């Protein structure tokens, strides 16, 4: 049997067995009745004791959503989603919100421990070692189903003036900030999934970094979907005020289930003058089994607004999970001299379908953007890069460089590239490079002749392929991502 075929066989088996995070946590939860209606929206808002304006905002989104149609332009196929068959609110049962980690259900803490997310600060301090030997603490906000269960390092962040808390809490404590920025990047009318999220989001993370402050640690959120038939709709809002800097990491997992779970998140980033936001994601939702049964439907709207001059937003993503991925982290380059970056590794295996890419919208003068996308398709998966680069009439001197490479493993998968390029002024310089290659039998044989096992050979070739992107991830994440790539492609070696 040719080597490639064996790899594909192996990969197919692995889908089912190798998803390491497919355990379920047995805790009582507080759920809203199944289905979606104005009453449910009111229920969620009331649960969170939200101000009236927030409820009105949600209801406006809901009424809008009812009139909208699910988009069909992406290169993904799935059975029609019955939106009335999901629960839109599930929270671990608790009398009131936890004030400290000691009040959090130990079973939840155990879950995060299994995932390797240390919530206790001392463990965090002990656990994270940088390449240069210094230790950088990471503040973690853990979201379980729809609710944020714990945010670490509150005190230390407070000293720096950084606000990092569940968005539900921010609505209580900093309503003016939330009201000013929420929906200002992704308006409630934006698209079907974002509008749905606006109506029913139950929690997520909120970050505000005041002017001139460099956030003293990496901020991190870990999302865990646990409840059956639950949609997870988290909303993240990050604001870097003038001259501020923040680096934010996001990770996701879910239990293995036969049914498809719905995930429709919205992430909004706002960078004011001279501010910089670095947003990294390692997405490892359950991808479904070898036959494509189960898995997460991931319909995510992520957008950053480089609102100020010389502001910078950088997206880095490693996508390995989900049955369906529909995701285009984008940058609106509004300020003059603003810059946007998108570094992506998207791996699809089994029957996974990925339609992902970015939008770089140049509005300000002398704005620059850079896109490095690496798609890897194996088994029967379909992997599409879809990207838009546009320069407005007034965006003189806009520059973009795009490099978009696809790697195929086996001959049943597909890689597709759909770039849209629009330049409305003559001083724009856009460059686009794209390649598609295949891990050939010959390449694998060459490596194996030198003594590497098939798994080692595939891992070596793939790691070479994604190197340009991996180096943009924060150190801790790069290591995790590298491991994840090996696991999702050829199983544990050794």
């Amino acid at each position, binding site marked *: *049997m*040719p*080597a490639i075929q064996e790899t594909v066989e192996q990969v197919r088996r692995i889908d089912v067995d190798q998803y390491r995070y497919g355990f379920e946590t047995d805790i009582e939860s507080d759920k809203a009745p199944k289905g979606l209606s104005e009453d449910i929206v009111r229920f969620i808002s009331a649960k969170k004791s939200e101000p009236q304006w927030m409820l009105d905002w949600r209801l406006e989104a809901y009424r809008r959503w009812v009139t909208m149609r699910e988009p069909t332009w992406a290169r993904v196929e799935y059975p029609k989603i019955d939106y009335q068959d999901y629960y839109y609110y599930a929270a671990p049962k608790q009398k009131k919100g936890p004030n400290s980690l000691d009040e959090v259900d130990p079973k939840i803490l155990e879950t995060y421990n299994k995932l390797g997310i240390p919530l206790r600060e001392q463990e965090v301090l002990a656990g994270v070692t940088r390449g240069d030997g210094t230790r950088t603490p990471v503040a973690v906000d853990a979201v379980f189903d729809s609710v944020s269960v714990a945010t670490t390092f509150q005190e230390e962040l407070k000293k720096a003036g950084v606000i990092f808390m569940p968005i539900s809490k921010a609505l209580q404590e900093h309503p003016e900030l939330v009201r000013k920025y929420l929906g200002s990047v992704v308006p409630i009318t934006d698209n079907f999934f974002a509008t749905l999220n606006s109506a029913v989001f139950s929690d997520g993370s909120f970050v505000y970094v005041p002017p001139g402050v460099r956030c003293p640690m990496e901020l991190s959120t870990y999302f865990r979907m646990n409840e059956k038939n639950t949609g997870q709709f988290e909303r993240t809002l990050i604001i870097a005020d003038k001259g501020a800097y923040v680096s934010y990491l996001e990770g996701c997992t879910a239990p293995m289930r036969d049914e498809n779970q719905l995930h429709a998140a919205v992430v909004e980033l706002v960078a004011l003058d001279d501010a910089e936001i670095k947003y990294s994601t390692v997405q490892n939702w359950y991808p479904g089994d070898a036959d494509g049964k189960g898995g997460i439907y991931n319909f995510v709207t992520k957008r950053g607004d480089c609102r100020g001059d010389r502001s910078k937003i950088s997206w880095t993503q490693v996508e390995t999970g989900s049955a369906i991925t529909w995701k285009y982290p984008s940058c609106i380059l509004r300020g003059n001299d603003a810059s946007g970056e998108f570094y992506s590794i998207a791996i699809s295996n089994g029957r996974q379908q990925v339609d992902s890419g970015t939008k770089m919208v140049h509005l300000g003068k002398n704005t620059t953007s850079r896109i490095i996308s690496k798609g890897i398709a194996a088994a029967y998966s379909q992997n599409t890069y879809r990207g838009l680069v546009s320069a407005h009439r007034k965006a003189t001197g806009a520059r973009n460089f795009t490099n978009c490479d696809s790697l195929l493993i086996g001959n049943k998968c597909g890689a597709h590239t759909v770039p849209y390029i629009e330049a409305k002024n003559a001083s724009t310089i856009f460059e686009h490079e794209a390649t598609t290659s295949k891990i*050939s*039998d*010959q*390449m694998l*044989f*060459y*490596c*194996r*002749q*030198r*003594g*590497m*096992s*098939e798994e*080692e050979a595939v891992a*070596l*070739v793939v*790691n*070479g*392929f*994604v*190197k*340009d992107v991996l180096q943009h991830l924060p150190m801790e994440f790069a290591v995790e991502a590298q491991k994840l790539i090996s696991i999702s492609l050829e199983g544990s070696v*050794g």
Partner: protein
Amino acid sequence: MSLLEISNLHARVEGKQILNGLNLTIEPGQVAAIMGPNGSGKSTLAYVLAGRPGYEVTEGDIRLDGESLLDLQPDERAARGVFLAFQYPMEIPGVATMTFLRTALNAQRKARGEPELTTPEFLKRVREAADHLEIKQEMLRRGVNVGFSGGEKKRNEILQMALLQPKLAVLDETDSGLDIDALKIVADGVNRLRSPERGMIVITHYQRLLDYIVPDVVHVLSKGRVVKSGDKNLALELEAKGYADYTGEAA
């Protein structure tokens, strides 16, 4: 015991029979040249020895140190000391040559139950081998064979051989695409690796390479069999007369 014993080897590729009862023995320390016209099965023999998928052995056996290789995977054969210098070495973008060498060496050591080399020891060995082959450090940082000239690719093959220290080295048309200076460097590298324990099979179409790597024995391959064996003078004879004597009968 012979190092390598090939007996009555029949093999086919994509349904086409290429090797038809090939017999060949290599003694420890011996350098054997294999010559023959195009299509006689030289490269097929090299791939079958290394266990390339798609090269199917239908009859016969290959034994290294008395152990049959037929059921072993390519990496298992490599760990037992089989090395193939490719006629067309593959490019692996993004993987530094140094990383490749280290991954390969450690994989073999692990398979043999030996500890991994320490970084200083590894670097020392690479540097020594690279110096002899006039390979610059800068080249080792580049992607494996990416942007290498023909000569650089072949030198890189010999570098790997020097580092992996195989029991049996098979050089598949290592001279193809080399100018005379590059040929000398490569031949010099190969000669340096001659040792009383190591066997080598030097596959070539032309006698020229054998001026620099002088073989102990020359075998002529035709239609998938060894049809004549002799000393190094046989190569000179072939150079003068061509392969017509060995291909004529069926033509």
